[in-house]
C-alpha cells in the first residue's frame, strides 16, 4: 500500500449542488472514488490509498490533467485504488465530477 496526497488550485468551482457522491468499486484494476464538497471554491484535494506502489509520477500527471480539464474546485476526493490503469482513474474521476454536477435530490 502507498498513500499519496495532491493539492491543486482549480480555475473555478465545480458545478452542481450535490454534497457527496461515490463511484466505482475497490477491485483489482478498478477504484472507488468518494467526492465531497467540503473545500473553499477554488481548492481541490485528492487523498489516495493505492495497492500499487511506485506510481506517484503517473498519479501526479493524471491528477494534474484532470484538474486542468474539469476544474473540480471545492471538491475533496478520497480514493481507494486496486491498481487501476490511468485511463480507468481518469474515467472514474470524471464520472465523480459529473455526479457532483447533479442537483441535490
Amino acid at each position: 500500500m502507498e498513500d499519496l496526497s495532491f493539492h491543486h488550485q482549480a480555475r473555478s468551482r465545480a458545478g452542481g449542488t450535490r454534497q457527496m457522491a461515490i463511484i466505482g468499486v475497490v477491485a483489482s484494476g478498478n477504484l472507488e472514488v468518494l467526492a465531497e464538497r467540503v473545500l473553499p471554491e477554488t481548492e481541490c484535494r485528492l487523498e489516495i490509498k493505492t495497492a500499487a506502489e511506485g506510481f506517484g509520477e503517473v498519479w501526479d500527471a493524471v491528477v494534474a490533467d484532470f484538474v486542468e480539464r474539469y476544474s473540480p474546485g471545492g471538491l475533496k476526493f478520497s480514493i481507494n485504488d486496486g491498481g487501476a490503469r490511468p485511463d480507468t482513474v481518469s474515467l472514474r474521476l470524471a464520472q465523480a465530477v459529473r455526479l457532483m454536477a447533479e442537483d441535490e435530490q
Partner: protein
Amino acid sequence: MRNWQQGRQARDARIEAGAKLAKGKIVEARDATRLMEAVIRPGDRVCLEGDNQKQADLLCRALLAVDLAKVNGLHMVQSGIVLPEHLDLFDRGVAKRLDYAYSGPQSARIARMLFGGKIELGAVHTYLELFARYFIDLTPQVALIAAVSADRDGNLYTGPNTEDTPTVVEATAFKNGVVIAQVNEIVDKVPRVDIPADRVQFVVEADKPFFVEPLFTRDPGAITEGQILTAMLAIKAIYAPYGVQRLNHGIGFSTAAIELLLPTCGERLGLKGKVASHFALNPHPALIPAIESGWVEQIHCFGSEVGMDDYIRARSDVFFTGPDGSLRSNRAFCQTAGLYACDMFIGSTLQIDLRGNSSTVTTSRIAGFGGAPNMGADARGRRHPSTPWLQAGREADPDGSALLRRGRKLVVQIGETFGEKNAPLFVEKLDALALAEKLKLDLAPVMIYGDDVTHIVTEEGVANLLLCRDANEREQAIRGVAGYTDVGRNRDKKMVQHLRERGVIRRPEDLGIDPLDADRSMLAARSIKDLVRWSGGLYAPPSQFRNW
C-alpha cells in the same frame, strides 16, 4: 539419358508401400503409425495440417509414435504450431527443421525450444507467404490433412473449416507428393466435394472428430468502457470520414466493440449502408447484431467458428456456402481478398514503438504472425481505385499528381494505452529486437511495419500518421495518443498541441465524444446470450461461453 520421372517414381513407391496397409484407400486408425513409416522418408518435407483452427490431431499422434530408425529429421512446413504434440515431434527427433506462420497457444514453449536449439528455424512467415513457398521452394513430399468426411473413393468434405486444406493439397498432389487425410467418418456420399478423390491417396477414419478451437468468440460481457470509447473514436474518426465499406477486423475486444456499436452508435451517425458492408473476416459471433440489422452485405471467411454453422447456413445471402448449404472457407483466398480487395485493416497489438512498428512478440513468447501482416500492409500491386484508398493516398501526398499517386490502404492499430497486467502499449524499443539479437535472426519479427500504419487509436484519441510530414511529427503524434505511458508522458507538449490544431491528433472532445458516454448500454449485445437472441436461436455458443 537423364530420368525425368524420379519424383513420380518415388511417389509411386511410397503409395505402393502404404497400399499394403490399406483396403482401397482406407487405412484403419490403429495402422496409422505404420502408414507413416511406410510413406514418409527421413528428412522429408511434411505438411502436418495445423491450421489456425482445424488440427489433424490423429495423424499428428501417429507421426509422433514412429520408429525413429525409419522416420526422422523431418522438415515440417505447416501454418500453425497449435497442439503440444506439434512440438513433441521436435523433442523426440521425428522432426528437425521448421517453417511456420503462427504458434499462438504454444508461443512460450516454442520460444524455449528455439533458444535451446531443439528446433532449426527456417523462418516465421505470414500465411500467404508460407502458402506461396509451398509452390516454390517448400513443396511438401507428404501432406497429413483433416476433413469431416470421405467417401470410399477418397472424395473429401472439409465442412465449414476448409481453411488451408485446398492449398496444401494443391501443392502436394500436383508435385509428386502423397496426401493422407484423417476424417471424422467414412460415408457413401459426401455432402459436397471439397477435395477430389484423385488428389488423396489414403484415408484414415478417426475415433473422434478433429480438434477445432473457438478462436474468434469474444464475450460482449467482458468489453470495457475503455474499449467502447476507442471503438466510438474509430467509427467517428475513420469509418465515417473515409467511408470504409470493404474491410478486415482483428480478433480483439476493441474490434468486437466496434461490431457491437454499428447497430447503435453507427446507426445514429447515419452510417448504415455507407460503411462496414463487405468483410474478409471469420464468422465473428459479435457481428451477428450488425448482420441482423442489415449492415453487412457479404463476408468471405478464412475459417469458421465453433457454434456458427447453423446461423451461417441460414444466412447464405451473406456468407459463401456450398450446394450442401454449409460454409466454404478458404484461408489463401481470404488472405488475398484482405490484401487486395479491402480498404482497411483494424486490429490490436501488444507493442508499438516510436516509428509505429508493432509486434506481438515478447522476449519469452513467439506467437508468430498468422495473417495480420498481409491484412495490415499496403498491397503494392494494387491497381483498382476506391474512395477511401484514394483519400488516404491524397492525405499522404497532397502535392503529388492525382493520376500517378498511389492510394493507401488504411492500416489502423487500436488499443488501450495500458494492456493486460498494466503493460504499456507504447515502448521506446520493441521486445522483438531483443529477441532477434538473442536468437541471432536476420530480421526482427515485426508484425506491422510503421510505414504501413496509417492511424493509431487509443482512449486518448486518434493519431493520423498519413498527415505527418517527417519522422519527428510522426513520433510526437504517437506520443500524443500514448496517454500516461512513459512514451506518452515524454511528449513535446507544444508540438502535440500543434499537431492537434492540424487535425493530426484528434481527442474525444474534438470528435464530439464525451468519454462519459462510453457506456456498456451502447452495445447492441451485452452478453453471449444476447447474441443467441439476436440470431433467433441459430447461434450455438460452445460450452465455455455459456454461463446460463
